[in-house]
């Protein structure tokens, strides 16, 4: 008779056991803030559809100190999402080969971050242009 009795270890709390996993869970956690922002925008849309009074009420609510603090938190979390999203590009995307040479992974990451900065500035200028 076989004396084999393979022991399966528990996965409970695995994410606390290694700093690498802790950071992983933090950047995965940015999703909670993206949900929150998506819901904030949806509320705004509903208020906009309800007319001017409703919309102005929403604008007023966005001015409350609690809302400002909340959006500062959202900004940090979503910026961290952007930072880690591109940081993972060498892992998550196929290598870029130019003239038979693989593009250095750091360059790919930096291009991503640059793209965010460019998108930020361009969006800001466009919004400013429309508003002015």
């Amino acid at each position, binding site marked *: 008779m076989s*004396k*084999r*009795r*393979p*022991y*399966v*270890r528990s*996965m409970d709390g*695995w*994410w606390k*056991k*290694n700093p*690498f*996993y802790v950071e*992983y869970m933090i950047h*995965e956690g940015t999703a909670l803030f993206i949900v929150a922002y998506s819901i904030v925008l949806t509320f705004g849309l509903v208020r906009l559809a309800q007319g001017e009074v409703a919309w102005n009420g929403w604008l007023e609510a966005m001015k409350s100190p609690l809302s400002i603090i909340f959006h500062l938190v959202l900004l940090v979390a979503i910026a961290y999402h952007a930072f880690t999203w591109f940081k*993972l590009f*060498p*892992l*998550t*995307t*196929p*290598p870029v080969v130019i003239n*038979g040479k693989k593009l250095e992974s750091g360059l790919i990451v930096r291009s991503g971050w640059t793209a965010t900065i460019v998108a930020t500035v361009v969006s800001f200028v466009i919004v400013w242009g429309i508003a002015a």
Partner: protein
Amino acid sequence: MSEQKIIEIEVLRYLPESDQAPRPEVYKVPFTDDMSVLQGVQYIKDNFDGSLTFRWSCRMAICGSCGMMINGIPKLSCEAFIRDYYPKRISIEALGNFPIEKDLVVDLSGFIEKLEAIQPYIIPKEPRTVEEGEYIQTPAQFADYIQFTSCINCTLCYAACPQVGLNPDFIGPGAMALMHRYNMDSRDGGQARRMEIAASEEGVYNCSAVGYCSEVCPKKVDPGNAVNINKINAGKDYFLRFLSPKGGAK
């Protein structure tokens, strides 16, 4: 001569015949600066307890047998040195995410089945007879897959992957890297057959891009990248299979 240095090595022991669950046991091991953790474990077996069970062979990071969790990190014990841990205690445990067979030996049968499933051999695009001559491959075509041939099946990447621990059916990083190695070979025509596995519920989408597999790989295979490239490939196959005359996986 300087005084003999002693390191404490805590080993997670498990004897299936007598232990209900694994239990730690501490050994005081004299060591010299040139000793690897594997040699420390060998010292324990030779001098303290002959029943201590572990796998090893080449002692030079090429056979892939001696992987274990060293202070919670998957490593080849032959290329981890005791001096780098001293004077702190070293904790050793069987590779994570695998069932423990005995002491530091894990049950690899699941991994072997996964390895078989991805068909890790060239499935010729166009079979050639000996008279027709060899398969020609350019250096550029060779460069496409060379990185993924370096895998030594040490399974450190499985021990690093929480998704393997959470779903033991997940094909996992190492086997997927080898799948990619054959898919990328210009002589190979087995992509559609392997796609059945990559695109399946046990396939690439179990990966959530933790990336620790590539971090611990002793051979810089970057299995995480292989898995993620195949998410894109399997995604294309999913959406374009109705357009493609050859069709994708079933």
